[in-house]
């Protein structure tokens, strides 16, 4: 251990530990410890003021028997799945469009990309105005076309789809860029070979582009889905969870449980379930990516 090279090695290792420690410490404090604490609180009755009391699985038992929880879970899934299925298709089409050499293509991409920089609060306020039945331009335009006013945010059946469309509008640019990069990474030779073999544009899209994009598509789908599962701000700002409970999501229930009902146990059990759902989804992503990467000619 006295040779100069191993001394340098040790110095280097010590530097490595020193460099990595601060980040690990902070991440421990802001992610891992809270996760453990959430697990603990979910097994207690706790109102933030009096000491937590151990109740075992009581919170989960109640949650599973609670209509409002299932309603929130359904809403969350509806929002996430609806937005993402439509969103991935639209994002793919827009990415295909922008993968063509268009004059002003960069500027157009930027236009689609901008809303993604703004916060959900900002986007929600803007669309509350756009959706307004009395003074909003969308209904003004519909009325101009002879279509009856649509109550986007106060009609039980429209409220969630409206928020979905708005969120899709905001997020499209981000995922479009990822897909665009994926498309551009497909070796031109494959496309050309297919062309020579007489495949038309549609065949090339379904037989070349889609298979080559599989793992990027999967990534986009899962990332978008996980983000959408955490929806809160849009409902809080635009509908406060209404009409009836049409836009109350899991995170909204969690917020209500914690801060209006002072039921930290219930809030934590929702958090834990949400976490498990997310872990499950990302494991599926890993699995899928492994499967796909074996089939693909090159990694996108």
């Amino acid at each position, binding site marked *: 251990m006295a040779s100069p090279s191993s001394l340098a090695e040790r110095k280097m290792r010590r530097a490595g530990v020193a460099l990595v420690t601060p980040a690990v410490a902070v991440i421990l404090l802001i992610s891992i410890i809270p996760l453990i604490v959430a697990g603990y609180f979910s097994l207690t009755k706790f109102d933030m003021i009096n000491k937590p009391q151990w109740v075992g699985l009581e919170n989960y038992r109640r949650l599973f028997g609670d209509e409002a929880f299932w309603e929130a879970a359904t809403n969350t899934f509806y929002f996430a799945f609806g937005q993402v299925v439509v969103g991935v298709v639209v994002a793919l089409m827009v990415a295909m469009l922008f993968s063509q050499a268009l004059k002003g293509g960069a500027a157009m991409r930027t236009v689609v990309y901008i809303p993604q920089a703004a916060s959900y609060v900002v986007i929600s306020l803007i669309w509350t105005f756009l959706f307004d039945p009395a003074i909003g331009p969308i209904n003004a335009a519909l009325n101009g076309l002879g279509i009856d006013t649509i109550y986007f945010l106060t009609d039980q059946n429209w409220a969630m789809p409206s928020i979905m469309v708005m969120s899709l509008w905001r997020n499209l640019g981000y995922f479009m860029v990822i897909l665009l990069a994926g498309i551009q990474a497909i070796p031109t030779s494959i496309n050309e070979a297919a062309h020579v073999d007489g495949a038309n544009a549609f065949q090339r899209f379904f037989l070349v582009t889609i298979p080559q994009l599989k793992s990027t598509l999967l990534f986009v789908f899962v990332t978008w889905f996980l983000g959408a599962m955490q929806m809160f701000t849009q409902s809080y700002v635009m509908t406060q969870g209404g009409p009836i409970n049409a836009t109350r999501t899991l995170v909204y229930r969690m917020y209500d449980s914690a801060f*209006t009902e002072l039921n930290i146990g219930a809030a934590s059990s929702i958090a834990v379930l949400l976490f498990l759902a997310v872990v499950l989804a990302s494991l599926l992503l890993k699995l899928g990516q492994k499967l796909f990467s074996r089939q693909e000619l090159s990694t996108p």
Partner: protein
Amino acid sequence: MPNAAHTTSHLPSRRTILRAGTLAAGLGALSALSACGTGTGSATGGGGKTLSLQLLGADEKTIDFLKTTVAEQFKTKTGFELELRTSDWASGFQKMVTAAASSSLADVVTLGGIWTAPLASKNALLPLDEKFAAWDESAQFNKNMLTDARYEDKLYALPFAADTRTACYRMDHLESVGYTEDTLPTTWDEYKAMAEKLSTKNGGPAKSPISWFNDKSIGIQQSFAQLMFQAGGSYWDSSGKATFSSDAGKNALDYLVSFYKDGLSDFNDVFTGTGAGAVAAGRSSAEYSGLLVYRNTQDFADKPTPKIVAGPPLKATSSSAPVSSAWVNKFGVAAGTKHQDEAWELVKLLTSVSTMETLNERVGALPTRTDAVNSDFFKGLPEGFSKASEFVVTQPSSPNMLAIGPAIKIVLQKAILGQATTEEALTEIDKKVNEINGVA
């Protein structure tokens, strides 16, 4: 009007300029700030004698008034400095709870309607009965409004501002179908008959004549509660069991739902807090509301501004008692305060005649004591509001009220949309309320 004032000032105020300075200084001292992480912190400890006051929804002028006039009077009386903490109403309760949970409530706190019980039941507030009884001005307070400050027979706060809700009318609409201020409806039947005349389907001026204070929060539940009280109902009986599916509850809900069924009210006309509401925009002619509809009309209706009149509280039938409701804001003392006497002095000062008059003007509210009626602001208000204040019935004092209101609202919406019959809805409300209250 208070709101008009703060939206139309054109010159940067002294505060704004100071803040711009703060911004620059803040940027310069970033590292220092991150190191100590100050903010307002909890200043109850430390040197100097300071008493803190948590204010909700105060605008700049209110804050200036408290910082100068009130703070000076307070200092003369007690030698204490006054420290203000301000927050908004929307998340006010959550902020109060989190502060209570971390024992960092201000010494004196603002309480919204129905907040007394949720906080008092968690031992966050100090009972004030003895001090109040010893105060020679205690007889001046509106008795009905004091009930909203009680929990289990103890008084925890003093009211300083009320939002009395009654049927408010847009007179230009009413006059166009033959009503005057002397012939306003007093019973449910008369109110409904008026609504029919006002409707565009019968040649009247309003698309959906009656608005029920339909907002994203629990406005419609508040209107329903008032109807239920008018019909002689209550939330629960003496044993605590919910009694919404009583005859009174059924009458009230049938009456409310009939307006939506008959096209006299519009479920989709929701007030967001921004821009003109239904009455100001002329879509509706009357609303179960308070000063809000009056102010909103002043701010947003087309000119000339239509006259808004607060009508007499309605009664279910000509033989039943008229009822209005009020959402009462109060000042309470934190249980954990180290300066009980000074905190009480501050509450007294804040609810004194002259302070109350100024605060009412600033926030656009009605007084809660009978002798705070001398301000020009008060004299300029539709007089129906103070008459209606005599018939106020407040919401029951329950620790779970903040969860009960939203739960009821959701079921009411189902009934209004026809997804549940009124019987089904009321049974469901009873079930939910009992569940929340832990009553078998």
